[in-house]
């Protein structure tokens, strides 16, 4: 069964460093998303992406964040200058159509020290 994959599973970085989190969505899906979950808290929406552009972003997704679909399979989230409060589990998700099921990857645990 097709699934969303994410790499790396765990990333440790120092404050101020740039990180890129990678995702491979399900191949025939058209909508892509990033969410994050700070330990013990709710899963929070960051950004949605469709047709090679951001369709919506949350207040969390400030200028430090960017997303890209560099080729036909990868979808990346970049954090330019990480902060301690960026430590969280980051989930990528994809859906075939708008308003359809969103399938999540296993997550990347980002630890900023």
């Amino acid at each position, binding site marked *: 069964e097709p699934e969303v994959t994410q790499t790396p599973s765990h990333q440790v970085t120092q404050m101020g460093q740039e990180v890129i989190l990678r995702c491979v969505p399900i191949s025939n899906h058209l909508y892509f*998303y990033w969410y994050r979950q700070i330990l013990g808290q709710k*899963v929070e*929406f960051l950004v949605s992406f469709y047709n090679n552009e951001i*369709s*919506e972003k949350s207040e969390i997704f400030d200028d430090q964040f960017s997303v890209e679909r560099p080729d036909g399979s990868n979808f990346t989230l970049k954090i330019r200058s990480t902060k301690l409060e960026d430590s969280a589990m980051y989930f990528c*998700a994809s*859906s075939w159509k708008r*308003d359809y099921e969103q399938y999540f990857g296993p*997550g990347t645990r980002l630890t900023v020290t």
Partner: protein
Amino acid sequence: SQQGEEDPQALSIQEGENATMNCSYKTSINNLQWYRQNSGRGLVHLILIRSNEREKHSGRLRVTLDTSKKSSSLLITASRAADTASYFCATVPQGGNNRLAFGKGNQVVVIP
């Protein structure tokens, strides 16, 4: 912003029993989705119910939606130890964006 909000409860049940958890939300929705998360791992999609549906089944799962009360319930029948997990509801608002708004989750422990 609207939120899916589960009843803040932790369930501990014996294997074979049924588990029910509830979710309420504040504004009109397009659909509501239930997810399972095993400790520290990814979110597994369980079921999606649309605003014009009242009940949906998938295997041992039964989801109901009451849009007049802005609430949903997830029933797991004949629970198994492998059902031990956190369960989240997430809503997609009506008219516009496609972001999922998650609740805090219900911890379910099934005792063998």
